[in-house]
């Protein structure tokens, strides 16, 4: 079974440039998450989707960050314009969702390492 797929794995851009990350969750997983992880820190939730609806985006800096999950499957996270402080690993995760019960464990992708110069 394929896991969570993210692309690109690495991205280097200059500040003020736009950048986009793509995530394809595990098939059948209704819930999708985007996290930001700084070096030496744990992941921090940016946004959570239940199907195509963003149900928790309180941590998303909306002045420069945006996300979409139009058909309730794959998702794109965008930063425009990027700043030096945005350098981090951006992780995508998916889970069956709260209605599935059980552990609702999250399955993470490998992440995209962003470097802003």
């Amino acid at each position, binding site marked *: 079974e394929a896991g969570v797929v993210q692309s690109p794995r690495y991205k280097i851009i200059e500040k003020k440039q736009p950048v986009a990350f793509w995530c394809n969750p595990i098939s059948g997983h209704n819930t999708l998450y985007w996290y930001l992880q700084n070096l030496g*820190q*744990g992941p921090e939730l940016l946004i959570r989707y239940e199907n195509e609806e963003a149900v*928790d985006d309180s941590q998303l800096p909306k002045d420069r960050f945006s996300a979409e999950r139009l058909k309730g499957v794959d998702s794109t996270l965008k930063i425009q314009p990027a700043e030096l402080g945005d350098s981090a690993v951006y992780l995508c*995760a998916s889970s069956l969702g*709260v209605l599935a019960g059980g*552990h*609702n*464990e999250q399955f*993470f992708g490998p*992440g995209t390492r962003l470097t802003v110069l």
Partner: protein
Amino acid sequence: LAKTTQPISMDSYEGQEVNITCSHNNIATNDYITWYQQFPSQGPRFIIQGYKTKVTNEVASLFIPADRKSSTLSLPRVSLSDTAVYYCLVGDPLSGGYQKVTFGTGTKLQVIP
């Protein structure tokens, strides 16, 4: 939101049992305790989840005392491949509240040959 506190780092020799304790004094009635493992350059991976007493799976055991204000992840006979960061999360996975809890800094476990 329940806040968790865990040691920043731990060292252990191969073959030993490792216990990592997490404190969560303001855990709510509906909250579960969940542990994730993260290797360098990879996303976190679910290890185990529990509500009370003891939970065991093929990877680890989770001990939760009656007051649930702390929990202990136990890794039996660790090997070098268990070197990773371990995160303790507290929240209600069925309501979405669990998702709002940050992973924190985790515990960096270094297994020594």
